[in-house]
């Protein structure tokens, strides 16, 4: 929400945020990536166990 552009570090006095969209957008993407990683891990793990039973 406080993303901004500036030409000098002298302009920076508080919170910094860079990038397109809001911090919340990036947080949601990060959450989704973690959930997908866990789901893929669970699926892979099950497949390995099934092969060896």
């Amino acid at each position, binding site marked *: *929400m406080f993303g901004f552009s500036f030409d000098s570090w002298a302009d920076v006095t*508080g*919170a*910094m945020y860079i990038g397109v969209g809001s911090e919340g957008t990036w947080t949601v993407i990060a*959450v989704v990536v*973690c959930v997908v990683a866990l789901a893929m*891990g669970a699926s892979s793990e099950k497949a390995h*166990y099934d092969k*060896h039973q």
Partner: protein
Amino acid sequence: MEEQIALLTANLEAVTQAAQTTNTMFAETYYFLSIPLMMIIHAGFLAYEMGATRLKNTLSSGIKNLLAFAFTIITFYFFGWWFYWALPTGFTGSEGYMAISGIEYANAIALPWGDSAQYMGPNIADNASGVFWGAFALFAATTASIMSGALIERVQTVGFVVLAIVLGSFAWVVAAAWGWHADGWLVTEWGVHDFGAAGLVHAVAGFFALGVLFNLGPRVGKFNADGSANHIAGHNMPLTVVGLMLIIVGFFGFLMACIILPGESWSWAGTGTTIYGTRMTLSALAFGIVLAVSGGIIGAWVFTRDPFWMMSGALAGIISVASGLDIYFPSQIIIISMIAGIILKPCADFVERCGIDDAVGAVTVHGTIGIFGVLMLGVMAAGYPALDAYAPEGTPVITFTGQLVGSVVFILLGIVPGYIVSAILKAMGMLRVPDAVQLKGLDVVKVPAQAYPEGMTSPASEDV
């Protein structure tokens, strides 16, 4: 004359500002350096658990530790930090006396989105939030890793990660909010004092592990048909013992981060204080930690003569006095930690006789000894202020009853979620590694690498 006074005033202001900057940078550096020190705890857990594992499961044990750390840290960023600030007064999320708690306050400072995000990322005007978050995140990862060793060689990786997230980013955080926050209801209503987190980290983690063990069951081959237990030795005792020593080293970082430094807007009154605002010094820790380690080692040596139990005794020594490391006299620490070392092995044997396969004694070292430590402070420090700076009128002092209430709450905050979540995972088929895979070995089934590809024997030297 007036010019000289103006000059002196300006100089005084400049010196004052420089001193404040130095103080702020020192405080930031102090907590920042506690973070890599606490990382050493995880190097220790990694070595310790891989060493305590049979050769066929070495790497899968290590993978489990790495993922517990990674997912706990990330989820602590997503929501764990928020729970700490939201829940001190209870699940109602109302604001406490100090006005630094409650859902509204947590929403303002601990969410990684919206206006709150200014405290959850780079901010030139904020030298505190990141280092405090970092230290707490390492507390969280440490708590989750404590459970890990008890479950080795038969817990599924992703199932374990889910358990680590629940323990590291929720269960212990609730305990910390209630018993390790100046607005925590266990502190303000019962006078609970647990400076070094014997109860709210160690006991919660130990009993969470116990709750999981009820559903997970023992390793294949641990118990015979008549109920007697077989000893399952790890493949590398030296690695295990060195790992335990690394955990001890890391605990210096853990405990130094429990001190609130003076001179900042977020500081308590006084020169240095605990999280409860009661006064203490780093010198108290210097006396206490090394003596507790020594007492625990000697206590465990008396009956076991076993280096594994001696180093577990070192850990138990610290945990047994952690609640009162700010106020115990060193000789008391020697006695209490030695008792912890002595009772350690018999307590672990009792757990095993109950048919529970706690592979590294985590339930005993952290759960039983954690509760022992919380209760001992109720005996030794009864009448001492539980909360000091800015405490509301009528705040109770430390009592045995208060410490007992805290102990019961810590046990429940561990064992209940541990049991429920592991039961759900069990129903989903995500908890226990199939017996056939356990017999074959976890590494060969699911790890694309070998722990010791060249075997354990080095070639004979030709330089003779």
